[in-house]
């Protein structure tokens, strides 16, 4: 029998970049699932939510009225919030990998699941910083929701480990970062420049840093930074830059699933897997498996899917996935990778490290 999963993704608009990567990871997951599952087949129906909440809500309603069994959410807490609310009203399971706000899980929705959260990112960055033991950190953060959340969290937690923190917020419209970096250079004189932002901002910030050469020891960022793509697009900006990552590059995945994912992905899209597609792959896989289990138990129609989701407990490329009462995945942790001559080496936490960190290490 065939099940339909509905997905709303920001294929156009400000989040289009993330939407595309998400869609790719998800498609690969479904493809792999269908290959190995003889009984149940899954089909995804994707609707562009145009990076806006109202259209995401409409998309969810349309997907459900088209017979979707469950919904895979797009990107951004602002959009996932209302969309998952709508999905809950319709009694459909909703899973996302692109919304980290704590408010989402505080709503007490029974159908809402996510595999990553702000706490995980924060932990990842904290671990690295505790290992590096800098005296001071300058945080340059976009005023967008997720980056700001992370920055605020770090601003609170890092001083507890004796690290001095200065935060510089910037409006996403800004393109010239030299004045900010100059403040880091002349006023903060920090050991580490931490960026909580998105790709276009990273490029601008690192470029400004490369021009002004502040006396920092490392440049650290978060999502979508330690990716092979960033290195191939901007080779002379990325050397030694650190960012969150799950997999080293070239991919050395130990487990079968990871290898298969990398292969199919490369085959389908002609490129290496990326941070966002990995997240999306895992969430889609988890959902597919839960659907299969519920189908076996015959409880898909009677609302058993949410229970099956809650029973999920498996290892994945992202580590262990097990949802708590609120639908969150408290085990979500990640590693920090460093660009080293076109490779991405996992350097933190120590346990996962695939190589030694270059520290101090800068792109210039």
């Amino acid at each position, binding site marked *: 029998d065939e099940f339909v999963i509905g997905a709303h993704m920001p294929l*156009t*608009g*400000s989040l*289009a*970049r993330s*939407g*595309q990567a998400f869609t790719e990871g998800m498609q690969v997951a479904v493809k792999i699932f269908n290959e190995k599952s003889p009984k149940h087949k899954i089909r995804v129906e994707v609707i562009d939510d145009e990076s806006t909440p109202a259209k995401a809500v409409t998309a969810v309603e349309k997907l459900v009225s088209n017979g979707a069994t469950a919904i895979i959410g797009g990107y951004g807490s602002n959009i996932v919030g209302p969309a998952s609310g709508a999905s809950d009203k319709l009694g459909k399971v909703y899973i996302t990998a692109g919304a980290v706000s704590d408010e989402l899980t505080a709503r007490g929705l029974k159908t809402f699941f996510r595999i990553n959260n702000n706490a995980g990112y924060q932990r990842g960055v904290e671990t690295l910083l505790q290992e590096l033991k800098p005296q001071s950190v300058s945080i340059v953060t976009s*005023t967008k929701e997720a980056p700001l959340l992370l920055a605020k969290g770090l601003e609170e937690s890092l001083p507890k480990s004796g690290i001095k923190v200065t935060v*510089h*917020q*910037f*409006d996403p*419209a*800004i*393109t*010239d970062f*030299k*004045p*900010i970096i*100059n*403040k880091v250079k*002349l*006023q903060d004189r920090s050991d580490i420049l931490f960026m909580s932002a998105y*790709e*276009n901002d990273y*490029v*601008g910030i690192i*470029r400004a840093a*490369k*021009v*002004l*050469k502040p006396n920092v020891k490392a440049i650290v960022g978060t999502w979508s930074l330690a990716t092979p*793509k960033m290195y191939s*697009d*901007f*080779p*002379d*900006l990325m050397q030694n830059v650190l960012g969150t990552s799950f997999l080293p590059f070239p991919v050395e995945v130990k487990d079968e699933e990871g290898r298969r994912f990398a292969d199919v992905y490369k085959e389908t899209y002609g490129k290496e897997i990326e941070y966002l597609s990995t997240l999306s792959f895992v969430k889609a896989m988890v959902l597919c498996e839960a659907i299969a289990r519920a189908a076996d138990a015959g409880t898909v129609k009677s609302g058993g899917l949410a229970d099956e989701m809650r029973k999920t407990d498996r290892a994945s490329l992202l580590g262990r996935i097990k949802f708590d009462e609120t639908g969150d995945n408290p085990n979500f942790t990640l590693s920090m990778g460093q660009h080293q001559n076109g490779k991405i080496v996992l350097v933190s936490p120590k346990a996962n490290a695939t190589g030694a960190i270059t520290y101090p290490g800068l792109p210039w």
Partner: protein
Amino acid sequence: MFDLILQALSSGVLIGSVYALIALGLALTFGAMRIINLAHGELVLLAAYMAYVVEARTGLNPYAAIPLALVATCVVGTAIYFLVDRIREHRELNSLILTFAVGIILTNAILLFFASDVRSTSSPVLQDAVSVGNVFAMNSEIIAFAVSLILMAILWWWLKRSWYGRAVRSVSSNRSASMLMGIDPTRTEFIAFLVASILASFAGVALYTMSVVQPAVGHALTVKAFIVTVLAGVGSIPGVFCAALLLGITEALTVTLASSALQELAGMVLFLLVLFFMPNGLFGAHARRG
């Protein structure tokens, strides 16, 4: 502190000169035809993507893309012009919708062709720093600054002194009177549009070398350019330059002296203040009489 402010001023001037470059084409079509080309930002973006194509495919310096960018923007600019020229009623308002529509089409076409990845030059030479004392800038910024100045001077001369330039201004002032002077308004407007497209291509390549582009930024570019144009006052080239620098410097100083999150706010407040105290922009003269 002094160093900070100095750096902010220089950054402001450099970024301002690019704002000016982006705004010039818009100011020209606005001044010449009273038509606000809402697709101007997309035209600039198109040129930037041409630079990307050339750099990524051939490994050449992005400036080598200027001929290709010229062709692309002029072709699209021509198409826009002929569409606008077909509007028969309420030209000012309808051209707004028409060019907006073209902007949507271009944005989405770029999205389809180039996906939504962030693009910018990877050439190390262009990103290298030059410094004067404690003030730093990228090579590409200096080049863009120079190009901007040169183009502005040429354009200023062209509008003020050449017969075509005079024709452009007269058509915008009074279409039928200009016909009586022996000016073909359609041709004149077309030329103005072409020149605007040429300016857009330079602006696009400059943008690609010093900043990042994404399909969605076209609209923001238009708005920025438009704000500069209005700040300047209709049809004033020196006005565009001053307004753009003023905006750039205000933004940079806000980041340095206050919070970077307020940069956008400061620009807008500046814009409103200028408008309230000089309702026709910094350099706009306007005859009103009973």
